[in-house]
């Protein structure tokens, strides 16, 4: 169990997708003006990244590696991510139409989120087994959601603050993001211990 917990802490905090690997920055800046939007996007992303990672692991192990098709990895993974998004949408529309109406808008956005593809490619680098891949993907996306919600909370507060005109809008957003990144650098000390 200790290895699972270490994997989760490492993927979510120490090697955070946004603040340590700089993936998904588009949604990080674009969907974090409100906490509820960030939360919806984070939850939807967590679901899709975890499902995609499972599909990507299977394709990598049983198709790309045995047949020497590694050069098709990026294309194959993008296809799986798009399929996972469509599948999620179909499942939610069928299983819980009310939830789909409430949350469904975030699903199509995920297809174009580079964090999803980034996590899937990192899994290949890590040479994980099935369950480790799934846990790693889940923890990475949990870290993504955490940072999205934290940053959205900060931006909501900054929006109420008296910011000098020259810094208003994206500039103060970038400054806030850099301070958040510095704070997350503290977690890298955990790997040294």
């Amino acid at each position, binding site marked *: 169990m200790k290895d*699972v917990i270490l994997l989760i802490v490492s993927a979510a905090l120490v090697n955070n997708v946004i603040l340590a690997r700089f993936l998904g920055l588009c949604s990080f800046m674009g969907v974090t003006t409100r906490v509820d939007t960030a939360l919806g*996007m984070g939850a939807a992303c967590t*679901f899709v990244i975890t499902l995609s990672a499972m599909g990507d692991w299977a394709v990598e192990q049983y198709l790309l590696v045995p047949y020497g098709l590694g050069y098709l990895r990026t294309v194959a993974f993008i296809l799986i991510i798009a399929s996972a998004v469509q599948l999620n949408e179909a499942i939610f529309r069928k299983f*819980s139409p009310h*939830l789909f109406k*409430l949350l469904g*808008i975030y699903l199509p956005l995920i297809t*174009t989120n580079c964090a999803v593809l980034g996590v899937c490619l990192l899994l290949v680098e890590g040479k994980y087994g099935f369950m480790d891949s799934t846990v790693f993907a889940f923890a990475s996306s949990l870290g993504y959601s955490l940072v999205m919600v934290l940053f959205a909370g900060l931006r909501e507060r900054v929006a109420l603050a008296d910011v000098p005109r020259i810094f208003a809008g994206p500039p103060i957003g970038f400054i806030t993001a850099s301070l958040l990144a510095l704070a997350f650098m503290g977690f890298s000390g955990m790997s040294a211990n």
Partner: protein
Amino acid sequence: MTQLGDSFPDAGDREVTEGIARVISVDGTMVWLEPEQTTACGGCASSKVCGAEPGSRRLVARRFSLVNHDDLRVGEHVVVGVSSSTLLRASMTAYGVPLLLMLVSGVTAQKLIGGDGAAAAATLAGLVVGLGLVRLWSMRFSARGELTPHFIRRVPAPGPDGACHGLDG
């Protein structure tokens, strides 16, 4: 499509997440509305592809109805809202429950049986059970009318300077 009430059961003590919807049609005492994407997306060059463009198939699928107590007319924009706690609960239910069941069953199978095949089978089984639970909870939430947006106010028409009057108005 859902029919819903028009006010929060306990509006006084709830934070409300607001959004803008456009009146698509008026059908007797009911109005049909289509949510407008205003905050997160819909403005970029890819909106036609991702389905966030107004009138797209995805937005059509999310149309909902309201009781027309306020004499709403076709083309009007209104602010609708959902309780923030409901939104949070819905997100956690929809995504959290299947994911947690999936991971717990997968990790348990991996530890007890071992091997990727058993873990994969258990993970998928956990996902299916989780989605089943989501369906049950979703039906319970919707029976109480919690998952459907409620009318809050009309969106004022844009001023002469084209200033935007939206959620904060």
